[in-house]
């Protein structure tokens, strides 16, 4: 955390449905933000469902890197 004094803020989440295989680890970590739909794909429930750190952990847990996070300046934070 050298120069990152500004707390992380996630303003956009994109889930790539082609990459998503329904492992559901994002739901395990951040169920208030991610849930599984009828096709067993993750979808966004509420971007404010968890703090940014938890949402980032959820995205990083995805075994196919299907969750893309962007900060308030529109920069891709993950992956």
């Amino acid at each position, binding site marked *: 955390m050298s120069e990152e004094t500004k707390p992380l803020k996630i303003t956009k989440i994109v889930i790539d449905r082609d990459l998503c*295989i329904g492992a*559901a*680890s994002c739901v*395990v970590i951040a169920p208030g933000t991610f849930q599984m739909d009828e096709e*067993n794909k993750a979808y966004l429930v509420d971007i404010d469902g968890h703090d940014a750190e938890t949402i980032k*952990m959820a995205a990083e847990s995805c*075994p*196919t890197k299907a969750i893309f996070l962007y900060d308030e300046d529109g920069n891709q934070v993950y992956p």
Partner: protein
Amino acid sequence: MREVEILIIGGGAAGTTAAETYRVGGGQGDVVIVSDEAHQLYSRVLLPHAAKGKISPEKAFLKNEAWYAEKRIELMRGRSVLRVDYKRSIATLDGDEEISYKKLLIAVGGKPRAWQMSGADHADVLQLQTYEDAIKLRERLVPDMRMAIVGSGFIAIEFAAACVEKGVKATLINRGPHFWTSALGEKIGHAVQAALEAKGVEVRNGAKVAAVEVEGGISGVTLSTGETVPCNLVGVGIGIETPMEPFGDLRGTQGLLADAYLKASHENVWVAGDCAEYDDEVVGFRRVVGNWANAIAQGRHVGQALLGRHEKFVLLTGYSTAVFPGASLLFLGESRMLPEAQRYERVLEDGKKIVEFRTLGGRVIGATLLNAVDQRAAAAALITSGVSVAGRESDLADPHVPLDGF
């Protein structure tokens, strides 16, 4: 002797998630992960894609060096733990290095079962579990090669799909009477086999390898019938097992024993991930669960336990695999066919969709869905509710009886 607050044996999804959860949750103690792999955390789920050449192998990495440094998690790579002295709280690593811990998490995952076969040590007898395995498969899968695949489970399917992708002719050799006998009933087993055959994979059921023929390179595998299947690569996917040796009296039937809290019988020791044989209150018995979401969830659970939370781990997870587009499998709950369990197969839409239920003691403990992810919620509810289906088991196979009617 080195002394650490938290020692984690295993650098996979469970171990790494536990370390991360502890640190992000405010844990200040030093955290050391000992991993027998040479790499930071990577996604085993992406290995088949890397082997097929669909992504570069580096894409499989989920964490980089900077992440470990930032989280103050030390990763000791390429090191193995020889034994643990629980009374003295000391783990002994290769080279007889001792590390004493305040708290220990064992999350060693599984290792591919050794194939007891003459010729099995040949360099072209391949596995698909590690990063190195994927790289090797990627290099060796070139047109004009022929592969014999031994086994009929998840890894055998991945080998077959990789062969199809790379134009390599594959013959799958399965000991069981139908495809993936240890997990699937006949109906889904036949459907998965048909999906493989439609892509040009030859499937031999009830067949057993007697020898790998080696003359410099591999020239074929000979079956117990005497027939030789020509090939120059062999892919082995006959299951995984838990490395028990270093962990003394935690040895269970399939994994390392833990209670419903993922707590081992020794003070300050937890077990998580694919190696944990824990009291699963979702299905009502002790078992090992080997899937990605479970490893993440159990790692997270123990990470919170390391911060002082005391709660049972109660969660239904599943895993899915797309054999090929148009043939998807989703496993929920207990995926193995236990000897004492019963199986009920529900055929929907003229066989396009099949849902298989496994019951034990009058309750549903597992379900497998072929092309039927829309049934996931209903099937999961049958398992998690623990509702009794005693006396009505045959209704599980009747597509006219709604699943929410139990």
